[in-house]
């Protein structure tokens, strides 16, 4: 009984202390960058390399250069487990500490925090994911989805198919399929592909995969086998990807006609299938492998030194590199902001200016030790996507290799769709539309 009583007393005490939680401790001695990570939960395999990439680059800047222009970076992880409610909790907890930018890496969390950011004056950088119409910077000044969006990428895939078929006029009568997670994220490219189907006269078929049964896709693949689409695109995530690739192998779908979105092009998606998946293609906007001087620096200064948790073998993995690229954009935006506002601890508003005026040139990439790692990146007041090209990478049976050149998206098709959707959202949400000079 005494144990029971004292335990109850402890819990009661905890309940009384709880209201004191949330007292803000502002990070005055450095730039505070919260990372919403998911090293736990069903998507931990993807979340861990992303978190490591982001963390390692900031840690490198801190240990090698003493921060950015002499100002330290304070990086704090908040574990979400990919859950939206926990993500919102993390956002509310970290925003008062002087957060300058959020990189949510989850469509659900991105959607939930986008409406909150204008009032809190903190920008969101959802690099190549999240809310596509947010590329219209007039309606969503606080959201950046550079270098490119799902819709742009879908147009790149069609362009690539046209190149392979020998011109856009050859697309007529062809059949292009889309196997996608039956979820708002998976349905993202459908309007764009429908529009392109109308323009170029190809037939467009969708094969939705319900999230609950994404590890059993036999019926879907039987249907694909019957329909025999000439090309197949995939918008998948998590366990759906390797299952789909195995499904394609089972029905002998030609791998070099199967193209995945940049979330369907991880090592873990194809590694199990190994040689059999050879030829599988995926969209990408940053380098594959670790053949850049920056990675040597990371090996030298960061790997094995706390708080970095990265095993050396993770360097060069797709999602690790994506974390690095994300961190590079954040760091360069901070530098840009410092160029205007001075070398001090910047705030969210100044960071927003930095992101909007970022100019990541090829020369700058070379200075960073990342020559050719990605394309030069610039955005503008009205265009937060920047219309950057994408390339296709190929699985050679044991690793990813660069396959195509950088292909520019069809801006004339995608941009009007983005603007129309942004306008619709602005009306629904009563968002002010900003003038861009």
């Amino acid at each position, binding site marked *: 009984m005494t144990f029971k009583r004292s335990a109850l007393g402890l819990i009661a005490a*905890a309940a009384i202390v709880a209201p004191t939680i949330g007292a803000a401790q502002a990070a005055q001695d450095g730039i505070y960058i919260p990372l919403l990570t998911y*090293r736990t939960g069903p998507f931990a395999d993807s979340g861990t390399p992303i978190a490591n990439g982001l963390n390692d680059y900031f840690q490198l800047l801190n240990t090698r250069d003493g921060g950015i222009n002499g100002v330290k970076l304070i990086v704090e992880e908040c574990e979400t487990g990919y859950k939206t409610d926990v993500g919102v909790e993390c956002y509310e907890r970290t925003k008062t500490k002087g957060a300058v930018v959020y990189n949510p890496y989850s*469509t659900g969390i991105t*959607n939930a925090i986008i*409406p909150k950011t204008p009032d809190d004056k903190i920008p969101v950088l959802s690099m190549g994911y999240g809310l596509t119409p947010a590329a219209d910077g007039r309606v969503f000044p606080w959201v950046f989805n550079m270098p490119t969006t799902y819709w742009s990428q879908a147009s790149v895939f069609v362009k690539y198919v046209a190149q392979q078929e020998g011109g856009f006029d050859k697309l007529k009568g062809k059949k292009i399929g889309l196997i996608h997670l039956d979820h708002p994220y998976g349905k993202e490219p459908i309007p764009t592909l429908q529009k392109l189907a109308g323009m170029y006269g190809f037939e467009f078929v969708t094969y939705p995969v319900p999230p609950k049964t994404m590890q059993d896709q036999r019926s879907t693949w039987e249907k694909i086998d019957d329909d025999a689409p000439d090309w197949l695109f995939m918008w998948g995530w998590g366990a759906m990807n390797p299952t789909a690739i195995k499904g394609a192998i089972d029905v002998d779908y030609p791998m070099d006609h199967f193209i995945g979105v940049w979330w369907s092009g991880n090592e873990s998606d194809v590694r199990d299938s190994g040689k059999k998946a050879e030829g599988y293609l995926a969209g990408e906007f940053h380098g594959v492998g670790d053949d850049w001087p920056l990675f040597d620096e990371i090996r030298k200064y960061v790997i094995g030194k706390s708080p970095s948790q990265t095993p050396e073998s993770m360097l060069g993995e797709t999602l690790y590199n994506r974390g690095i690229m994300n961190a590079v954009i954040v760091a360069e935006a901070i530098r840009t902001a410092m160029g205007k506002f001075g070398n001090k601890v910047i705030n969210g508003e100044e960071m927003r200016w930095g992101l909007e005026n970022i100019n990541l040139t090829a020369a700058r990439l070379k200075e960073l030790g990342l020559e050719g790692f990605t394309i030069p990146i610039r955005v503008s007041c009205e265009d937060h996507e920047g219309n950057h090209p994408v390339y296709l990478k190929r699985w050679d049976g044991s690793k990813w290799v660069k396959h195509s050149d950088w292909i520019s998206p069809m801006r004339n098709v995608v941009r009007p769709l983005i603007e129309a959707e942004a306008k619709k959202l602005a009306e629904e949400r009563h968002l002010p539309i900003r003038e861009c000079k």
Partner: protein
Amino acid sequence: MIYREAGQFKTSYAADQAIFPILQDRIAVAIMMVVALVVIPMFGSDYFLEIIMINVLFFSLAAIGLNLLTGYTGQISLGTGGFMAVGAVSSYKMAILFPDLNIILIFLLSGLFAAAVGILFGLPSLRIKGFYLAVATLAAQFFLDWLFLRVDWFTNASTAIEGVPRSLFGVTITGPAATPVAKYYVALGFVLVFALIAKNLVRSQVGRAWMAIRDMDIAAEIIGIRPLRTKLLAFAISSFYCGIAGSLMLFLFYDSAEPDLFDINLSFKVLFMIIIGGLGSILGSFLGAAFIVTIPVILTNAPDLLGLPISSELAKHLEFMIFGALIIFFLIVEPHGLARLWQIAKEKLRQWPFPY
């Protein structure tokens, strides 16, 4: 000593039937009201209001709703998330389609939509019971999930449904621009009114009919309680509460949410709330919601507050373990829930400090 009702004589039926017949309870409730209405909004940080209080409030409402159905009428439901989704989606649609409609009215109407859907999926309860009914309500959950993901009309073909900004008496009360205090008062208002209604419902003829059905439906039928009306009424009112809770969740907390947030996990979460809080108890709904919402938040913040240098990943794992252990601990201490624990404490308090 302090908590004794000796000498408090009831001289009228009204006094005898009051919700809080004991003076000390009335004082405690009055103090709690002052805390909830004045102290918390004045001194609570934004984080405390948004993450803890607003969450506790709308989950309490959902838990009351489910408790009316499961705790009082004995019909197990796993469709809570689906009914909350109906509330959220219908209030979003109404807010977009009728920009001039009062937001409070929208919330109430969304409850009616949810009630209608609840009646529809409550129909099988007339023929099946227990675990079989749980499976039938599971179908409601999956169907509604599927419907809102698949039919673009419900979400206006966008990836997320939004809590549209609206104001009442010139104060913005929903959407991202609303202050946490304004949102808190809206949530509190709804919860107070509907908790009071629920409390009175279960003390009335309706509530007694529900409990008769729960305890033995054949006996209830023999003494003249109509199972059709009683069960469907329970489903309707329960879904009404859940629908409003779903609307509040979208409009006061998420601001923008993918429809699949209202999935089976949400149903389980609310079910766990009433199991831990206490089946067949309005107070239990509050206690259960408070337990499930606040404990993880406290645990998440604990390493930071105590200054423990552990990684966020380890902290999360510890949080899961401690939370799980606490649930098991409380269920072993009192399988009938936190509400029963409070009842026992009350009986002990009566004799304190001279137990015999």
